[in-house]
């Protein structure tokens, strides 16, 4: 076993316990052995390596609930190793892989293939989600029980909504037998069909087919009736509209087992990004209006929105350097998740613990995985970050094979300095002091 070590003089941030104090954290045998303000250099035994981390923040490693790994099927856009490297550089220590690959992950053997490939890298923990319906086609139920045994942490058809209400009702009902989390892509397919961006004045001016805002809330309202009927645990992968936030807030008040996530791009950007037919602003759900963005931030601040996830979707140049309507949806986000989310804290929109909670303990709890907290005995999945470090997003600086970031050229404040999984450093920034 490697030598025990301690980070000293850092700001400890644990959203689960509300801990926010300057102190130290001791790691022994890949687990957190001790933490708190009492841990100082002078009190440690001689065998313990001391790592000065003054001025830095130490938090649980991030848990990203929505990541597309590129494997299997799109290895030219991303591979598990490149995705994991990007995740580590972004401070992510656990990620949930979406199953809408080619072929989709709807079979226990496929799921195990992905998990095994990821385990071999001995880096970021990869937890595959499985398809909710066979082939992600929205017609027949996937083998939820067997897939759960194979390690599926959630069930979802990824970027596709389950359109058929009867199929959704049965999927939700069946999921309760295994206490499985069902993740929906809230977009009524008939209303969204053919759409390329948010419907409204900008789409009209650009002459692009729109996706109406109501496509989101209509599907959510339908599903909430089904959730009410079945009691299934239901999560909305990423919401984009003020109406969705309002409906989820009311559903939570009624006690329904519902949760929802947002992406950093929906929190920071609006449909105005599409001006000039910028295909890197083509995402699903689409970027919406300023009022929607404000409602998402308010929802995050008051806890209606549970999770911030990257919805990391690698697309190569050939998928994006085409006319807007033909371009593929999605942006990469693993490496900008932390920094983009921190913008809200820097702007005074949300507390640091609340914000980190949406990227650590809350997604971990929803997925039922270890991690996301600083506690004695917990796995040492850690993120050491410099909250004020200024840096600019460049394509060349990204570790993802695909460079389709929505934040190209943007200056952020805050960046991972070091990322540890089970006490092993899986990423350390070379130009950083620690």
């Amino acid at each position, binding site marked *: 076993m490697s030598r025990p070590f301690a980070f000293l003089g850092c700001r400890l941030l644990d959203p689960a316990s509300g801990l926010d104090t300057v102190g130290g954290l001791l790691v022994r045998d890949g687990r957190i052995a001790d933490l708190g303000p009492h841990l100082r250099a002078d009190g440690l035994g001689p065998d313990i390596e001391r790592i000065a981390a003054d001025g830095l923040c130490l938090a649980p490693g991030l848990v990203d609930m929505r990541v597309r790994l590129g494997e299997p099927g799109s290895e030219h856009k991303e591979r598990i190793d490149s995705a994991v490297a990007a995740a580590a550089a972004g401070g992510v220590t656990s990620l949930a892989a979406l199953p809408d690959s080619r072929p989709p992950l709807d079979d226990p053997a496929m799921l195990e293939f992905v998990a095994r490939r990821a385990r071999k890298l001995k880096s970021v923990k990869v937890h595959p989600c499985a398809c909710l319906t066979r082939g992600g086609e929205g017609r027949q139920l996937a083998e939820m029980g067997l897939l759960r045994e194979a390690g599926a942490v959630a069930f979802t058809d990824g970027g596709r909504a389950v359109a058929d209400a009867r199929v959704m009702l049965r999927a939700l009902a069946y999921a309760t037998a295994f206490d499985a989390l069902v993740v929906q892509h809230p977009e009524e397919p008939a209303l969204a069909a053919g759409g390329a961006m948010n419907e409204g*004045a900008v*789409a*009209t*001016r*650009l*002459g692009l087919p729109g996706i109406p805002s109501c496509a989101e809330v209509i599907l959510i309202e339908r599903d909430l009736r089904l959730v009410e009927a079945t009691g299934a645990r239901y999560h909305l992968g990423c919401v984009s509209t003020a109406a969705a936030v309002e409906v989820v807030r009311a559903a939570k008040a009624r006690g329904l087992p519902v949760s929802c996530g947002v992406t950093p791009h929906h929190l920071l950007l609006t449909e105005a990004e599409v001006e000039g037919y910028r295909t890197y602003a083509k995402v699903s759900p689409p970027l919406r209006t300023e009022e929607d963005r404000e409602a998402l931030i308010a929802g995050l601040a008051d806890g209606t929105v549970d999770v911030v996830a990257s919805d990391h979707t690698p697309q190569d140049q050939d998928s994006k*350097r*085409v*006319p807007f309507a033909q371009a593929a949806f999605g942006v990469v986000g693993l490496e900008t998740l932390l920094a983009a989310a921190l913008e809200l804290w820097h702007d005074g929109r949300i507390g640091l613990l609340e914000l980190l909670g949406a990227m650590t303990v809350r997604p971990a709890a929803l997925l039922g995985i270890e991690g996301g907290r600083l506690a004695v005995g917990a796995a040492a999945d850690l993120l050491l970050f410099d909250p004020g470090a200024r840096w600019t997003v460049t394509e060349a600086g990204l570790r993802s094979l695909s460079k389709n970031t929505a934040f190209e050229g943007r200056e952020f404040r805050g960046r991972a300095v070091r990322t540890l999984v089970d006490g092993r450093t899986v990423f350390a920034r070379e130009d950083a002091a620690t």
Partner: protein
Amino acid sequence: MAAAPPRSHRHLLGIASLATEEIEALLETADGFVDLNRRSDKKLALLRGLTQINLFFESSTRTRTSFELAGKRLGADVVNMSVGASAIKKGETLIDTAMTLNAMHPDVLVVRHHDSGAVALLARHVRCAVINAGDGTHEHPTQALLDALTIRRRRGRIAGLTVAICGDIAHSRVARSNILLLTRLGARVRLVAPPTLLPAGMERQYGVTLFHDMRAGLEGADIVMMLRLQSERMQGSFVPSLREYFRFFGLTWEKLASARPDALIMHPGPMNRGVEIDGVVADDIDRSAILDQVEMGVAVRMACLDHLTRHLREAA
């Protein structure tokens, strides 16, 4: 080498990116070409030695012919390229096509494409002037310019006129370019259409007024501009039927009666007689400016070609 001309002069991608003075200048030049086109010797040498490629990803007879005549009358070597669906299926991307053509050193590319923004995308990958001959449902700037020239010659002005644009606004690049140009030149623009053919957010961003009733929309109008309704949109998806559409939104003498007595009728063509316009109305030479529009089209396109290639002549 001469210094590169300002970017806004290199391409004509839309009315939105034209300054009002540029619009006025194009209309002035075009006005002069109208007379030239009526002479028996129609040939000038302004574009002699230059190569113009008409690159059409969407079928078109009249616009392509109009651009071809315009180029030839100015002395350019004009090549027509129709890229059908089959070529796209072969896998060549728009940017590949752009770079391939660019390697042949054309001086002007006239491009029509079925996707909004595609012409601007292509323009970024070529080193010659690009004219947008219609991109998706975004813009069709030369159509708006020729409509403006038609109105100006028939009415003497544009400022202060009331223009009713009627029909399938949602899927019309002609409507968008015309709204931008006519409001810029001081006309009051009304849009008349069933709600399913009026896209969101028109009123506020363009300063236009919306109507769902033809008689109310045409009340006191100086210009009635009809738009083509594509056949695939007539059968229940956007409007219930052809006969219902004609009944409520087709231009007839009866509906036209609420417009000014001398109101001018326009249509970008090709017309669907008995769908958006009664054939008898379209054929009335006192009221219909439809054939004027075709004539002005050649003149306006000559003006655009002239303006976009001026820097080449100055450099020579």
